């Protein structure tokens, strides 16, 4: 298929294709990080993860409208405000959910799956009642629009760059929280041995709530970022959930690093295949490969062998 392209063109194809892969990668990481914390660290299967993202998206939508009407002068920076608010909103909702029912289900992961699925239905309907069934569009500040030309053939979308940057920041933040902060240490303690952690005076209930809230908060930020590339509708959250779970599981549930690695593998695989095959088949093949590998290596890419 390349016969009719010059080598320069080919080069630019691969450059741009690789970049497309990187954007997809960032998207996956954003989607998966929150889930990796909730599922990986707490063993809760949050089927409403997508809806938490959409919450972030709607918040962004509201904020952008606020700025457009009241602070048009500051419109350029509304996005940062929006992300913070999204984080808080989704986090708060997360804490509420954790308090209202998740905390009763820690011993029954499969039941959290059902309960959170129920939650997702309710959230969807709420969105529909509040924002209407139609998709809503978020106006981007101009500086996020367009692309930077590297060469006359290679152009890099700015919002793509932005998403990647954001991903770096958040991933870094999470890493710091989990592995460098006292809180993160407590979280890991609770994960590894709940009774013991409780015995040494860690307030496990509090830790759980914060962890869950953090996971949802990150989902909120992700949703906020997605308004730049994706759609915002009551049911949009559903689109992400399977991919997200696969990314997390594929990476080896307990390991954040694994999540990132698997996000990278899957995204690169998919965007490469998308270039050579039709979109649908690429998607099918990617999922099949992931499932296949999971069947051979159920513990995922990065799982520690432990002595039981």
């Amino acid at each position, binding site marked *: 298929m390349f016969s009719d392209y010059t080598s320069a063109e080919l080069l630019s194809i691969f450059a741009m294709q690789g970049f497309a892969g990187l954007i997809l990668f960032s998207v996956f990481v954003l989607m998966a990080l929150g889930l990796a914390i909730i599922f990986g660290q707490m063993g809760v299967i949050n089927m409403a993860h997508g809806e938490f993202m959409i919450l972030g998206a709607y918040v962004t939508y509201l904020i952008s409208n606020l700025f457009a009407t009241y602070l048009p002068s500051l419109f350029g920076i509304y996005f940062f405000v929006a992300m913070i608010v999204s984080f808080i909103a989704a986090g708060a909702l997360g804490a509420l959910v954790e308090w209202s029912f998740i905390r009763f289900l820690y011993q029954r992961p499969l039941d959290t799956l059902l309960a959170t699925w129920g939650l997702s239905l309710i959230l969807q309907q709420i969105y529909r009642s509040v924002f209407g069934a139609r998709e809503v569009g978020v106006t981007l500040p101009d500086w996020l629009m367009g692309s930077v030309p590297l060469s006359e053939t290679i152009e890099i979308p700015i919002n793509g760059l932005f998403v990647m940057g954001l991903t770096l920041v958040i991933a870094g933040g999470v890493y710091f929280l989990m592995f460098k902060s006292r809180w993160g240490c407590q979280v890991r303690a609770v994960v590894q041995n709940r009774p013991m952690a409780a015995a040494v005076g860690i307030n496990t209930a509090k830790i759980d709530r914060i962890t869950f809230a953090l996971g949802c908060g990150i989902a909120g930020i992700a949703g906020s970022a997605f308004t730049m590339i994706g759609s915002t509708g009551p049911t949009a959250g559903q689109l992400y959930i399977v991919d997200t779970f696969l990314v997390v599981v594929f990476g080896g549930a307990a390991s954040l690093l694994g999540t990132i690695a698997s996000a990278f593998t899957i995204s690169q695989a998919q965007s490469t295949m998308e270039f050579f095959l039709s979109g649908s088949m690429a998607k099918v093949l990617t999922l099949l490969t992931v499932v296949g590998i999971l069947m051979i290596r159920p513990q995922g890419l990065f799982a*520690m*062998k*432990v002595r*039981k």
Partner: protein
Amino acid sequence: MSTKDFVLAVEGLTVSFDGFKAVNDLSFYVDEGEIRVIIGPNGAGKTTVLDLICGKTKATSGSIKFRGKELTKMTEHAIVHSGVGRKFQNPSIYEDLTVFENLEISFPRGRSVAGALFFRRDAEVVQAVEEVAETIFLQDQLHTTAGLLSHGQKQWLEIGMLLIQKPDLLMLDEPVAGMSVAERKRTAELLNCITKGRSVIVIEHDMQFVEDIAHRVTVMHQGKTLSEGSMERVKSDPKVVEVYLGH
């Protein structure tokens, strides 16, 4: 003397978890009808050895020969079928089934899917169950739900679940842990009577109890055999005193 003559021959057994060698080049031999007790400080790798023998953990290297059959390559249930029974550290029984059902499930018949589907509770089963129930002092609790038994009784029930399989090699992980003095004595009797015609490996911390039952003792330390022999010999071994009995 060839490994054939032993019931169990463990040679050069090693398993490592991400580099950490929980069991390191371990070798020991168990005779017909012998009660072998394995002692050692926590983390010495005692339980891991049992896990390796019954196939719960796969060995990194080394061999485990049971009546000349290599176990390291076999699946758990195959190992059980070949005659190895294993009791877990804290009683592992089916709380929501009755004592009878617990024993019945362990009865070595209808272990395939079809077998289980068409398994019938005939006289043979009932008789076997009642016999065992008698040996483990539970003949009166046959129809109580196992969850309601005392800790000691649960331990016995699990032993009973092994007995009904008529294994040639019985492995018990801390069988008297958490038992009252009276219960220990009865357990000791129980062990002595059930060892007829089979070999037993016991992991135990309670020295008194070990004295009562052990034919030979293996002391493990950091995944290796530290010392082996009769209780007296082991007790007098300075190395053992230093790492274990001393404190």
